[in-house]
């Protein structure tokens, strides 16, 4: 059991964590609200990119630099460019002038509110005065984070996720073939 709050030698203690957490959280929430309310899909995509970048910064605050890099390169750089390409490929001028929300919007919001009530119920549950997830503050250096993830993914002896990694590459192959088959006019 490692004592929480212990700072190993060479690790930089974080500065103004509270301020940055609330700043990034507010950016993400506002970006998320803009994604689901804008008429123009390009504006939604730009708001989603803002959300994803703020989330990458939150990953850095959680000492996950590799996941933060993957988030920026793959999500903000790859997937969102794909979205923007498709938005510009298809003609959505008609859709902007139309109704943006469907007929079941009230039911949808009620269902989401019920789910939110469930979340609140779970997160405020206390047993013996403690919440389900007690405070786990600790400060680790992040020098070998990428190396350790690679050890879990690729290493012969410690890599318990090697098979899952191979399956993921197969999934991507299937996705490539599927996307080409569906988007091409004549095979």
């Amino acid at each position: 059991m490692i004592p929480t709050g212990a700072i190993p030698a060479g690790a930089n203690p974080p500065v103004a964590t509270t301020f940055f957490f609330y700043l990034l959280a507010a950016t993400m929430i506002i970006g998320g609200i803009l994604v689901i309310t804008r008429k123009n899909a390009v504006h939604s995509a730009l708001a989603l990119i803002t959300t994803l970048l703020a989330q990458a910064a939150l990953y850095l605050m959680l000492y996950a630099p590799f996941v933060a890099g993957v988030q920026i390169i793959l999500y903000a750089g790859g997937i969102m460019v794909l979205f923007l390409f498709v938005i510009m490929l298809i003609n959505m001028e008609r859709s902007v002038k139309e109704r943006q929300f469907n007929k079941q919007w009230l039911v949808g919001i009620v269902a989401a509110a019920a789910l939110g009530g469930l979340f609140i119920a779970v997160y405020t549950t206390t047993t013996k005065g403690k919440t389900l997830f007690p405070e786990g503050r600790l400060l680790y250096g992040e020098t070998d984070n990428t190396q350790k993830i690679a050890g879990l993914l690729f290493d012969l002896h410690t890599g318990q996720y090697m098979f899952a990694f191979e399956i993921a590459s197969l999934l991507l192959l299937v996705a490539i073939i599927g996307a080409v088959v569906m988007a091409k006019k004549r095979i």
Partner: protein
Amino acid sequence: MDFMLHITTLHYLVLGAALFLLGVIGVLTRRNVVIVLMSIELILNAVNLNLVAFSRYWQGIHGPQALHGQVFAIFVITDAAAEAAVGLGILIAFFRNKETVNVDEVNLLKW
């Protein structure tokens, strides 16, 4: 106000839950299929935030080599890439056939 000032795992979980709810509202209420797909990305990102926060919490118990949550987050990002590629392929095929991007006009199976 101590719980407001010290950022714990629970703060990240609440943020993840808020983003998840925004994504669910987007999926259930929007008509534009591109924005529905973007809302799905919001949901996946909320799950990723939870996974990385849990990874940090797990590191506090088992030491810095316990990075399973981050590995899971990478797998979720892989799935999101595959989902986006296939979803946008379906969207292009759909637009070619129906000349619309509204999901409630996909009603061939409705009776």
